[in-house]
């Protein structure tokens, strides 16, 4: 349990371009604050930069400009300026991320993979899968799962970890919206600062405390 309001993710003037000679701007001075106990939902059309934003927030992409700052109580860390060891530690101990990636030894049962990612027990991982009606995946080797099922395991692991910062890239594509909404509410009640992305018309609008649309590299807020 995190004290309400103790956690916060602050994004300041975040920009990211891709390409060599003629770089394409994906994010252009994005600003965002997600406080503990809240869910900020960023919707956008395909290729609007939602996944790029998530990857900048979780330390996978290094932004070209701007800062991503994490606050927990009196502690503040600028992830963009942090050394790789600190970024790796934040990713494995403080940030629960879901971005479609799940690197694991292929023969490991899904429940063990989820338990290791979340640093929780196997039984807790099975219970987390059951919340998304996916308990039957628990004994299956992760390498034999369909992509959609791997995503379910990755999302269950991210939410099982109960970390103060939660960053999810289009979680609705992997599980049913009602189960997801109740899991996110539970994480908000526990004091987590949550940022999630989704397609326009996302069902998460109903539980989001703030929402905006990512368009032409910037967020246009319509609920704050």
């Amino acid at each position, binding site marked *: 349990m995190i004290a309400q309001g103790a956690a916060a993710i602050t994004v300041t003037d975040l920009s990211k371009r891709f390409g060599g000679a003629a770089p394409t701007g994906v994010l252009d001075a994005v600003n965002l604050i997600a406080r503990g106990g809240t869910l900020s939902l960023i919707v956008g059309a395909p290729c609007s930069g939602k996944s790029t934003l998530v990857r900048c927030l979780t330390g996978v992409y290094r932004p070209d400009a701007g800062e991503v700052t994490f606050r927990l109580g009196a502690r503040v*860390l600028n992830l963009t300026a942090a050394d790789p060891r600190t*970024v790796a530690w934040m990713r494995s101990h403080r940030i629960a991320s879901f971005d479609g990636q799940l690197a694991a030894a292929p*023969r490991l049962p899904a429940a063990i993979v989820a338990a290791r990612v979340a640093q929780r027990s196997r039984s807790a991982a099975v219970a987390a899968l059951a919340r998304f009606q996916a308990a039957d995946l628990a004994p299956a080797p992760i390498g034999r799962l369909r992509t959609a099922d791997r995503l379910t395991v990755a999302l269950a692991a991210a939410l099982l970890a109960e970390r103060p910062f939660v960053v999810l890239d289009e979680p609705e594509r992997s599980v049913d919206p009602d189960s997801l909404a109740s899991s996110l509410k539970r994480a908000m009640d526990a004091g987590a600062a949550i940022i999630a992305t989704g397609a326009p018309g996302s069902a998460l609008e109903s539980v989001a405390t703030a929402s905006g649309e990512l368009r032409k590299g910037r967020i246009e807020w319509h609920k704050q």
Partner: protein
Amino acid sequence: MMTANAFDGLADWTDGESLLPPPPLVSVRGVSHRFGPGCDRCVELTGEEAGTNRCHACGSVVAVHDASFEVGSREVLGVVGESGSGKTTLLRCLHLDLVPDAGSMVVGQQENMFQATAAHRELRRSTVVMVHQNALAAGLYPRLAAESNVAERLLGGGARAFTGIHARATELLSELGLQPERHTDALMTFSGGMQQRVQLARALVDPPQLLLLDEPTTGLDPSVQADLLDVVQRVTETLGSATVIVSHDLAVVRILASRIVVLHHGRIVEQGVSEQILEDPQHPYTQLLVSSRLT
């Protein structure tokens, strides 16, 4: 610009609100090693800009230059790079097989290991352990039983009671998935994957502070590789050691390591979180390496 260590507030890693990792278990600073007589221009005439690690002036090979990194307990660092990039020389320095020309390595409470007064042979048993690509080249005894190879390490650690040694060796080999009926078979009758398991069992005898893995899955068929990955992951988590893995296989490194350093012409050209290096590489050589992956 703010750095991670320019942290607002006291960097107290023991509290639940910390945003910094615990202090590293292993700290490597400025490790450099060259083969050959060396000259004043070796550093200038080698490296990224020069496009070679061989000094034109004196013919020396600057195998590693100014390599620095830190690894924490239960952390796995991957080292990648093409053949001749300096991976093996770096690993040999960390394993105390080579004393580098410059640099230091602090492991736990032990000051610069390169200048340690204790015999390097003893440190290789107690502090730094390497799992080699080729088990038979790693000092294991091919004609002895798997159990005896593990027992040899137990004896080296001071164990003397036969029943205790036998029980412990059996337990370790079983933990690593070797069926009991094979424990007394000669090592040379084992497959590559099984030999790697015996090496890992030896590493578990006396958990080292620094575990080095040299291409642990190279040369194994995909099925054996998949099984061994699970074993290696369990061992690195169980031991609590700092682990450095060298591999050509980026998929293996991605699964096992949370961070990667990229070596090219003996220099670290990029280091970062594994996903960073593999999905958003910044250095041209890393971009080439990542784009050369077979998908």
